[in-house]
């Protein structure tokens, strides 16, 4: 049943969001801390578990795959509802701060990726 997969996906998101919200309150932060990431972990665990096979195999799985495939269209809709006007009306300071933050962060990607790589290579080497 397709709806089983959709229900599992929904349960993962709601559970993750609840935990993220609790984490936010516990840390005294006005934000959901990692709710979506935690929900993703649940789904990964569920899809790798033997007990929940009935919820992720066959037709149930296509219920999840559908939403996964709807991701790009949803992102396009998300782009179309951004406050682009406000972004450009913030003036030069906002543009410079935003652009500089992105350039520096881009430059750090290869640097920090190396940490992961050196870790795995040291695990693999005898």
């Amino acid at each position, binding site marked *: 049943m397709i709806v089983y997969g959709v229900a599992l*996906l*929904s349960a993962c*998101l709601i559970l*993750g969001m609840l935990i993220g919200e609790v984490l*936010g309150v516990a840390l005294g*932060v*006005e*934000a*959901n*801390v990692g709710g*979506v*990431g935690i929900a*993703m*972990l649940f*789904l*990964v665990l569920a*899809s790798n578990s033997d007990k929940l096979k009935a919820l992720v195999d066959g037709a149930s799985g296509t219920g*999840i*795959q*559908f*939403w*996964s495939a*709807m*991701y*790009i269209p*949803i*992102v*396009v809709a*998300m*782009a*179309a*509802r*951004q*406050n*682009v*006007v*406000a*972004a*450009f009306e*913030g003036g*030069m*300071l*906002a*543009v410079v*701060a*935003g*652009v500089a*933050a992105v350039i*520096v*962060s*881009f430059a*750090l*990607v*290869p640097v*920090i*990726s190396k940490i*992961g*790589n050196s*870790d*795995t290579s040291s695990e693999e080497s005898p």
Partner: protein
Amino acid sequence: MEIFETVFVRNSLVVAFAVVGLTIWISYFLADKLTKGRIHGSAIAIALGLLAAYFGGKATGGSTGVADITLLGGIGLMGGGMMRDFAIVATAFGVKLSELKKAGLAGIISIFAGVIVSFIVGAVVAVLYGYTDPVSVTTIGAGAVTYIVGPVTGSALGADSDIIALSVAAGLIKSILVMIGTPMIAKTIGLDNPQSAMVFGGLMGTTSGVAAGLAATDPKLVPYGAMTATFYTGVGCLLGPSILFFIVNALL
């Protein structure tokens, strides 16, 4: 005309599906014919979305781009936080646990490095533009983290509303630039495997930017980047009004 509007408004989400589908079809057509597949179709679709959002915002004066146009209100629901998060979580289906473990440490480091580096950059720019009070400098720095961290930090510290608006603008610029820039820079920064995607998500942090940027680069990388990115805003909201503010306060 009235009948037209009634049907469109009553079925707003369905209209959004059709409009977005058409946009993507046009985008893939353009990607294929004009760029011979060098630019990904979804990158063009996202760029068209942003462009439409600009004109939508200009025409209506609203804050949610195209979604403020009555006939296209459904775009607001389709592209809103609920659907976005639902679809992002769905992309984790089929992700290997071992890949996540491999990049775990680098992923966590990248989140903290990303928040702190973006904050410093934003704060330095604020100082260069002549801001000297710690609250404003912290708020603008937090805006360079994400457009959510900016206002959360600003209201916690009691910043002026124009400074908060500025911090939101900085965050929006960052988000838009990540959406457009990621597919262009992906090769140069080695963004072609799950590990670097997790680091990328942690460093950039803007969920919308990472979500769209990776989708336009390689949809297979989306779950890895999104996973770390969703922790970023939380960490930013945690550090902004506390440690980062104390440091700025001590320095200025």
